Protein backbone atom coordinates (compact mmCIF):
# COMPACT_ATOMS: atom_id res chain seq x y z
CA UNK A 1 0.00 0.00 0.00
CA UNK A 2 1.19 3.48 -0.80
CA UNK A 3 1.16 6.43 1.52
CA UNK A 4 2.19 10.02 1.18
CA UNK A 5 3.95 11.05 4.36
CA UNK A 6 5.98 14.24 4.71
CA UNK A 7 5.68 14.69 0.92
CA UNK A 8 7.34 11.32 0.38
CA UNK A 9 5.83 8.22 -1.12
CA UNK A 10 6.08 5.44 1.44
CA UNK A 11 5.28 1.83 0.72
CA UNK A 12 4.37 -0.58 3.51
CA UNK A 13 1.90 -3.31 4.38
CA UNK A 14 0.53 -2.78 7.86
CA UNK A 15 -1.30 -5.61 9.58
CA UNK A 16 -1.92 -4.27 13.06
CA UNK A 17 -4.95 -2.20 13.99
CA UNK A 18 -2.97 0.76 15.32
CA UNK A 19 -0.82 1.30 12.26
CA UNK A 20 -3.68 0.55 9.87
CA UNK A 21 -5.90 3.14 11.52
CA UNK A 22 -3.31 5.84 11.97
CA UNK A 23 -1.82 5.49 8.51
CA UNK A 24 -5.17 5.44 6.69
CA UNK A 25 -5.41 9.25 6.31
CA UNK A 26 -2.07 9.16 4.50
CA UNK A 27 -3.06 6.61 1.83
CA UNK A 28 -2.42 7.81 -1.68
CA UNK A 29 -3.32 6.67 -5.18
CA UNK A 30 -0.17 8.26 -6.54
CA UNK A 31 1.73 6.25 -9.13
CA UNK A 32 5.02 7.85 -8.12
CA UNK A 33 7.75 5.37 -7.30
CA UNK A 34 8.20 4.82 -3.55
CA UNK A 35 10.82 7.04 -1.90
CA UNK A 36 10.81 4.89 1.22
CA UNK A 37 10.10 1.19 1.33
CA UNK A 38 9.22 -0.07 4.80
CA UNK A 39 9.61 -3.82 4.91
CA UNK A 40 8.12 -4.90 8.19
CA UNK A 41 10.49 -7.41 9.71
CA UNK A 42 8.02 -9.75 11.46
CA UNK A 43 10.79 -11.74 13.13
CA UNK A 44 12.14 -8.57 14.63
CA UNK A 45 8.68 -7.75 15.98
CA UNK A 46 8.54 -11.09 17.78
CA UNK A 47 11.89 -10.37 19.45
CA UNK A 48 10.81 -6.86 20.30
CA UNK A 49 7.67 -8.20 21.93
CA UNK A 50 9.71 -10.65 24.04
CA UNK A 51 12.04 -7.91 25.22
CA UNK A 52 9.14 -5.56 26.01
CA UNK A 53 6.36 -7.66 27.52
CA UNK A 54 4.25 -4.56 28.20
CA UNK A 55 3.87 -3.95 24.44
CA UNK A 56 1.26 -5.58 22.21
CA UNK A 57 1.94 -6.90 18.70
CA UNK A 58 0.24 -3.80 17.36
CA UNK A 59 2.46 -1.53 19.44
CA UNK A 60 5.58 -3.30 18.18
CA UNK A 61 4.60 -2.92 14.54
CA UNK A 62 3.73 0.72 15.09
CA UNK A 63 6.98 1.55 16.89
CA UNK A 64 9.17 -0.45 14.51
CA UNK A 65 7.74 1.11 11.34
CA UNK A 66 8.15 4.56 12.88
CA UNK A 67 11.82 3.88 13.52
CA UNK A 68 12.35 2.69 9.96
CA UNK A 69 10.55 5.72 8.57
CA UNK A 70 12.45 8.27 10.66
CA UNK A 71 15.80 6.72 9.85
CA UNK A 72 14.99 6.78 6.14
CA UNK A 73 13.79 10.37 6.48
CA UNK A 74 17.40 11.44 7.08
CA UNK A 75 18.03 10.61 3.43
CA UNK A 76 15.52 13.27 2.36
CA UNK A 77 16.76 16.36 4.21
CA UNK A 78 14.53 15.38 7.06
CA UNK A 79 14.62 14.35 10.69
CA UNK A 80 12.49 13.38 13.64
CA UNK A 81 11.97 15.83 16.47
CA UNK A 82 10.52 14.35 19.63
CA UNK A 83 8.00 17.11 20.25
CA UNK A 84 4.39 18.14 20.11
CA UNK A 85 3.82 20.27 17.02
CA UNK A 86 1.11 22.89 17.06
CA UNK A 87 0.05 24.79 13.96
CA UNK A 88 -1.18 28.28 14.72
CA UNK A 89 -2.20 30.58 11.87
CA UNK A 90 -0.49 28.13 9.48
CA UNK A 91 2.88 28.20 11.21
CA UNK A 92 4.30 25.36 13.29
CA UNK A 93 5.56 25.68 16.85
CA UNK A 94 7.38 22.70 18.34
CA UNK A 95 7.38 21.88 22.03
CA UNK A 96 9.97 19.31 22.90
CA UNK A 97 10.59 17.48 26.16
CA UNK A 98 11.40 14.04 27.34
CA UNK A 99 8.47 11.64 27.72
CA UNK A 100 6.20 12.80 30.49
CA UNK A 101 7.71 16.28 30.27
CA UNK A 102 4.42 18.04 29.62
CA UNK A 103 4.66 18.74 25.89
CA UNK A 104 1.21 17.34 25.05
CA UNK A 105 -0.32 19.20 27.94
CA UNK A 106 1.20 22.44 26.76
CA UNK A 107 0.14 21.84 23.15
CA UNK A 108 -3.42 21.15 24.29
CA UNK A 109 -3.36 24.47 26.15
CA UNK A 110 -2.61 26.26 22.89
CA UNK A 111 -5.80 24.79 21.44
CA UNK A 112 -7.72 25.91 24.47
CA UNK A 113 -6.37 29.46 24.29
CA UNK A 114 -6.47 29.95 20.53
CA UNK A 115 -9.47 27.78 19.68
CA UNK A 116 -9.82 27.05 15.99
CA UNK A 117 -6.72 29.01 15.07
CA UNK A 118 -4.59 26.23 16.56
CA UNK A 119 -4.44 22.49 16.13
CA UNK A 120 -2.01 19.67 16.69
CA UNK A 121 -0.02 18.48 13.67
CA UNK A 122 1.67 15.64 15.52
CA UNK A 123 1.62 15.19 19.27
CA UNK A 124 4.89 13.32 19.66
CA UNK A 125 7.00 12.76 16.56
CA UNK A 126 6.56 15.35 13.83
CA UNK A 127 8.74 15.01 10.77
CA UNK A 128 10.87 18.00 9.90
CA UNK A 129 12.11 18.51 6.35
CA UNK A 130 14.00 21.23 4.58
CA UNK A 131 12.23 21.80 1.28
CA UNK A 132 13.07 24.63 -1.14
CA UNK A 133 15.16 26.34 1.49
CA UNK A 134 12.49 26.21 4.19
CA UNK A 135 11.98 23.99 7.22
CA UNK A 136 8.58 22.35 7.07
CA UNK A 137 6.81 20.38 9.81
CA UNK A 138 4.67 17.40 8.83
CA UNK A 139 2.14 15.25 10.55
CA UNK A 140 2.87 11.52 10.25
CA UNK A 141 1.02 8.38 11.35
CA UNK A 142 3.56 8.02 14.17
CA UNK A 143 2.49 10.23 17.02
CA UNK A 144 3.33 8.24 20.13
CA UNK A 145 0.72 7.23 22.63
CA UNK A 146 -2.01 9.42 21.18
CA UNK A 147 -3.45 9.39 17.69
CA UNK A 148 -3.20 13.15 17.48
CA UNK A 149 -1.76 13.72 14.05
CA UNK A 150 -2.99 15.35 10.89
CA UNK A 151 -1.85 14.82 7.34
CA UNK A 152 -0.64 18.33 6.67
CA UNK A 153 2.37 20.58 6.81
CA UNK A 154 3.30 24.03 8.04
CA UNK A 155 6.50 26.06 7.96
CA UNK A 156 8.47 25.81 11.19
CA UNK A 157 8.40 28.98 13.26
CA UNK A 158 10.30 28.08 16.44
CA UNK A 159 11.23 25.24 18.78
CA UNK A 160 10.97 25.36 22.57
CA UNK A 161 12.27 22.83 25.08
CA UNK A 162 9.90 22.53 28.00
CA UNK A 163 10.57 22.31 31.65
CA UNK A 164 7.80 22.21 34.20
CA UNK A 165 7.88 24.96 36.78
CA UNK A 166 5.73 27.19 38.92
CA UNK A 167 6.59 30.43 37.10
CA UNK A 168 6.30 31.00 33.37
CA UNK A 169 9.52 32.06 31.77
CA UNK A 170 11.01 31.79 28.31
CA UNK A 171 14.62 32.39 27.27
CA UNK A 172 16.39 32.15 23.95
CA UNK A 173 18.95 29.34 23.73
CA UNK A 174 22.46 29.62 22.37
CA UNK A 175 23.44 27.48 19.40
CA UNK A 176 25.36 25.18 21.72
CA UNK A 177 22.46 24.71 24.12
CA UNK A 178 20.04 24.15 21.24
CA UNK A 179 22.33 21.56 19.66
CA UNK A 180 22.78 19.54 22.84
CA UNK A 181 19.08 19.54 23.65
CA UNK A 182 18.06 18.71 20.10
CA UNK A 183 20.46 15.77 19.89
CA UNK A 184 18.71 14.29 22.89
CA UNK A 185 15.32 14.53 21.19
CA UNK A 186 16.02 12.92 17.85
CA UNK A 187 17.20 9.60 16.41
CA UNK A 188 20.94 9.44 16.04
CA UNK A 189 21.83 6.70 13.60
CA UNK A 190 25.61 6.70 13.41
CA UNK A 191 25.57 5.89 9.70
CA UNK A 192 23.61 9.07 8.96
CA UNK A 193 25.68 11.46 11.04
CA UNK A 194 26.95 13.39 8.02
CA UNK A 195 23.44 14.13 6.83
CA UNK A 196 22.04 14.78 10.27
CA UNK A 197 24.84 17.16 11.19
CA UNK A 198 24.44 19.30 8.08
CA UNK A 199 20.68 19.48 8.60
CA UNK A 200 21.19 20.44 12.26
CA UNK A 201 23.64 23.13 11.18
CA UNK A 202 20.98 24.76 9.00
CA UNK A 203 18.22 24.25 11.52
CA UNK A 204 20.10 25.92 14.36
CA UNK A 205 21.22 28.80 12.15
CA UNK A 206 17.78 29.46 10.70
CA UNK A 207 15.30 28.72 13.47
CA UNK A 208 15.08 30.29 16.95
CA UNK A 209 15.28 27.90 19.92
CA UNK A 210 13.95 28.59 23.39
CA UNK A 211 13.79 27.11 26.82
CA UNK A 212 10.31 27.41 28.26
CA UNK A 213 9.69 26.91 31.94
CA UNK A 214 5.96 26.73 32.41
CA UNK A 215 2.97 25.72 34.46
CA UNK A 216 -0.33 24.55 32.98
CA UNK A 217 -2.18 27.85 32.81
CA UNK A 218 -3.26 30.01 29.88
CA UNK A 219 -0.54 32.40 31.00
CA UNK A 220 2.05 29.78 30.02
CA UNK A 221 0.74 29.90 26.45
CA UNK A 222 0.84 33.68 26.29
CA UNK A 223 4.36 33.71 27.68
CA UNK A 224 5.51 31.24 25.02
CA UNK A 225 3.60 32.80 22.14
CA UNK A 226 4.79 36.35 22.83
CA UNK A 227 8.39 35.26 22.53
CA UNK A 228 8.07 32.71 19.76
CA UNK A 229 5.68 34.36 17.31
Amino acid at each position, binding site marked *: MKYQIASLIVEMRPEGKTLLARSAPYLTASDRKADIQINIDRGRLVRMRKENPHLTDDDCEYIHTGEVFYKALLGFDGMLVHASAVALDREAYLFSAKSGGGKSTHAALWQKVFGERAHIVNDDKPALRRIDGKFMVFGTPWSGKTDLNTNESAPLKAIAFLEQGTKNKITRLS*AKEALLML*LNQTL*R*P*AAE*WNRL*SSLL*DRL*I*KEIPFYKLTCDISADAVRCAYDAMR
Partner: protein
Amino acid sequence: MKIKNGYVLKEIAGNNIVVEVGGKVNFNGMMMLNETGAFLWKRLEKGADQAELAAALLEEYDVPYDKADEDVALFLQKLKGAGVLE
Protein backbone atom coordinates in the same frame (compact mmCIF):
# COMPACT_ATOMS: atom_id res chain seq x y z
CA MET B 1 48.80 8.15 20.42
CA LYS B 2 46.04 8.17 17.90
CA ILE B 3 42.34 8.96 17.67
CA LYS B 4 40.36 5.74 17.76
CA ASN B 5 38.62 4.76 14.56
CA GLY B 6 35.06 6.01 14.27
CA TYR B 7 35.37 9.28 16.16
CA VAL B 8 34.57 12.25 13.97
CA LEU B 9 34.62 16.00 14.45
CA LYS B 10 31.92 18.18 12.90
CA GLU B 11 31.20 21.84 13.05
CA ILE B 12 27.52 22.50 13.61
CA ALA B 13 26.36 26.11 13.83
CA GLY B 14 29.70 27.21 15.26
CA ASN B 15 30.03 24.28 17.66
CA ASN B 16 32.76 21.67 17.37
CA ILE B 17 31.29 18.35 18.29
CA VAL B 18 32.93 14.94 18.37
CA VAL B 19 30.79 11.82 18.22
CA GLU B 20 31.56 8.14 17.93
CA VAL B 21 29.98 6.78 14.77
CA GLY B 22 32.22 3.85 13.84
CA GLY B 23 30.40 0.55 13.95
CA LYS B 24 27.59 1.88 16.10
CA VAL B 25 23.92 1.75 15.32
CA ASN B 26 23.14 4.84 17.33
CA PHE B 27 25.74 7.07 18.89
CA ASN B 28 25.40 8.19 22.45
CA GLY B 29 28.55 9.86 23.66
CA MET B 30 29.46 13.29 22.39
CA MET B 31 32.05 15.85 23.30
CA MET B 32 32.23 19.56 22.58
CA LEU B 33 35.59 21.12 21.75
CA ASN B 34 36.51 24.79 21.86
CA GLU B 35 38.32 26.45 18.97
CA THR B 36 41.76 25.40 20.20
CA GLY B 37 40.52 21.89 20.86
CA ALA B 38 39.17 21.60 17.33
CA PHE B 39 42.46 22.93 15.94
CA LEU B 40 44.42 20.32 17.91
CA TRP B 41 41.99 17.57 16.95
CA LYS B 42 42.57 18.23 13.24
CA ARG B 43 46.33 18.02 13.76
CA LEU B 44 45.96 14.86 15.78
CA GLU B 45 43.91 13.32 12.98
CA LYS B 46 46.87 13.93 10.70
CA GLY B 47 49.12 12.01 13.07
CA ALA B 48 50.80 14.80 15.05
CA ASP B 49 52.45 13.76 18.35
CA GLN B 50 52.41 15.75 21.58
CA ALA B 51 55.45 17.87 20.72
CA GLU B 52 54.11 18.61 17.25
CA LEU B 53 50.76 19.64 18.69
CA ALA B 54 52.47 22.11 21.03
CA ALA B 55 54.55 23.46 18.16
CA ALA B 56 51.43 23.90 16.00
CA LEU B 57 49.69 25.72 18.81
CA LEU B 58 52.67 28.06 19.23
CA GLU B 59 52.68 28.80 15.56
CA GLU B 60 48.94 29.40 15.24
CA TYR B 61 48.21 31.23 18.47
CA ASP B 62 50.16 33.86 20.29
CA VAL B 63 50.81 31.89 23.49
CA PRO B 64 53.93 31.36 25.61
CA TYR B 65 55.68 28.01 25.24
CA ASP B 66 54.75 26.74 28.72
CA LYS B 67 51.10 27.54 28.12
CA ALA B 68 51.03 25.70 24.79
CA ASP B 69 52.61 22.68 26.40
CA GLU B 70 50.14 22.72 29.23
CA ASP B 71 47.12 23.19 26.92
CA VAL B 72 48.17 20.24 24.79
CA ALA B 73 48.66 18.04 27.86
CA LEU B 74 45.21 19.01 29.18
CA PHE B 75 43.62 18.40 25.80
CA LEU B 76 45.15 14.94 25.50
CA GLN B 77 44.14 14.13 29.05
CA LYS B 78 40.57 15.09 28.25
CA LEU B 79 40.55 12.83 25.20
CA LYS B 80 42.09 9.94 27.12
CA GLY B 81 39.53 10.40 29.87
CA ALA B 82 36.78 10.15 27.27
CA GLY B 83 38.32 6.99 25.84
CA VAL B 84 38.89 8.59 22.46
CA LEU B 85 42.60 7.79 22.14
CA GLU B 86 44.36 4.50 21.52
